[in-house]
């Protein structure tokens, strides 16, 4: 028995199994994925780091590390702290900046045999505009995920992500500047997630992804300082899953656009919770660190679940727990 999905094999074991006849395709508004399993921004680099461990071509999609117009060195170290069933990170949006990304990374990214979602962040509307302009159909990127929720940067995403008006504004702007599908990524650090979801739907988002990390802190009691150099960081991993599932459930009832669910997925059972709560696709972040084969195992498990319960398509299980 797999007690917790941490048992894995080399992925060769997976490739042979016949997929029988479950329809794995998911339609996220204008974006079609070959299957509902994505990997989360910031946990999957630029898509090839995990390739020796998990075959990219099996994934429904990957989301790139968050990008900003200018290069960022990110926050000082330490940037990670382990917490009960979770972890804190304060990477602080380290990234090569738009120009270097386009030159040095995009050529490889464009060859990735899966759907590629760029994740964009900014510190002003202008930043988002620059980023949105850069990614258009045919650019090698298939969709834009707008991170309005990064909790790490003091004057950054937090503002956009916790006020419905500015969230709507930034999404409308991005939507106006790109012809790619636009995914609005929501922060859970709000009183009313439904209000935020409605705002980004209003702003024209094609898809909602949720949740980003919860703001947290961990203290080194011997040094008597926060463990993270940045003091606070984003909490991810299984610990936050109940919060994420609750929010997906609430938002699924309130909006008409599809949801990508994430937050603490390690096993297919976890992913099934999100789909039953109303997520049309799921994304795996911290779970990759624990088990690089998690995305494949989740896919296999969901497929088998559909088979066992007589669902012909994965999309048939979306929202069934309502």
């Amino acid at each position, binding site marked *: 028995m797999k007690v917790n999905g941490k048992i894995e094999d080399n992925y060769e074991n997976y490739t042979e199994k016949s997929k029988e006849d479950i329809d794995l395709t998911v339609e996220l508004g204008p974006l079609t994925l070959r299957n509902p399993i994505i990997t989360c921004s*910031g946990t999957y680099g630029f898509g090839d780091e995990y390739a020796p461990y998990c075959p990219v071509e099996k994934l429904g999609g990957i989301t790139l590390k968050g990008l900003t117009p200018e290069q960022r060195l990110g926050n000082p170290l330490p940037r990670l702290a*382990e917490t*009960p069933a*979770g972890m804190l990170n304060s990477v602080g949006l380290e990234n090569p900046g738009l120009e270097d990304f386009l030159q040095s990374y995009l050529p490889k990214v464009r060859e990735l045999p899966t759907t590629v979602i760029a994740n964009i962040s900014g510190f002003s509307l202008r930043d988002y505009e620059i980023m949105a302009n850069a990614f258009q159909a045919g650019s090698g990127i298939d969709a834009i995920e707008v991170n309005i929720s990064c909790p790490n940067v003091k004057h950054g995403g937090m503002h956009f992500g916790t006020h419905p008006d500015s969230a709507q504004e930034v999404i409308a702007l991005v939507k106006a500047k790109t012809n790619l599908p636009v995914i609005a990524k929501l922060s859970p650090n709000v009183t009313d997630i439904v209000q935020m979801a409605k705002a980004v739907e209003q702003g024209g988002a094609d898809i909602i992804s949720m949740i980003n990390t919860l703001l947290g802190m961990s203290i080194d009691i011997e040094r008597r300082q926060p463990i993270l150099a940045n003091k606070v960081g984003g909490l991810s991993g299984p610990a936050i899953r109940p919060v994420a599932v609750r929010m997906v459930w609430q938002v699924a009832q309130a909006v008409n656009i599809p949801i990508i669910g994430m937050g603490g997925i390690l096993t297919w059972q976890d992913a099934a919770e999100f789909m039953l709560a109303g997520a049309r696709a799921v994304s795996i972040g911290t779970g990759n*660190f*624990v088990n690089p084969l998690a995305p494949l195992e989740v896919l296999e498990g969901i497929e088998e679940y559909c088979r066992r319960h007589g669902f012909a398509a994965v999309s048939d299980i979306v929202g069934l727990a309502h």
Partner: protein
Amino acid sequence: MLGKAHIIAHDFVGDPLYKIRRLILRTEVAREAQPGQFVHVQVAKGMDPLLRRPISIADIQREAQEITLLYRIKGKGTEILSEAKVGEELSLMGPLGHGFTLPARGELILVAGGIGVFPLLPLAKAAQEKNLDVSLYWGGENKGFFTSSGLDLWQEARIPVFLSSMDGSIGEKGNVLDLLKKQVGSRLNHGEGATQAAQSEVLSVAVCGPQVMTQVVSDYFLQKGAAVEVSLEERMGCAVGACLGCVCTLKDKVSGRIYRGKVCKDGPVFKGEEVLWDYEG
């Protein structure tokens, strides 16, 4: 490689007081492992703790398909790891990272602080096979620490070892830099201005230990014109370069550009001259 490793042996290296354990694993990792690389080990079956733990490869037996890990029980993760039993399996990723450069010729000085010695043995053995002149300078707490941290492995391998202990119970009393100054300093080019190129062809240095020690030793040998490599440590998430949790700060010697290096992927071994030790931010 991601897969299961079989536990062949698992015991205390010496006095359990020092909490240093030896873990011999049968794993494919042995096939490709290079000195200075590490593995990312899942210590528990459940989510407590959640993350894997990075541990250096301390010995490689290619034919037997075995690697040795030496680790100190530090916190919860290594405590749980210490309970793994011979015959059981552990999930392992590896070999990971960018290891040490084996010099083409000349002398190789290894410098270790405390348990920083663990990744150096495979390098020493590789150097030996290549007939390089290799020796270890190793600083530690006291005699018990050394004998409980694999000193005999070095002796078995017939690598010259020079020790310094804080309490003087073995080797020179004091820290490893003092030992180095005394034992090696006289042999080195006294002119601080000696051309780097000339020196580095003959003297290579590999350092691993606590950050402050690594830094001062690196600076010392850089000043003497040696080619210095340092092995760094950071908290890790993915260990494959995907999360940016583990970066260090580097400065390109040519362009002067400041950038981040991923300890897990670009390192853990970096050129001493490129590391910006005290970069704030």
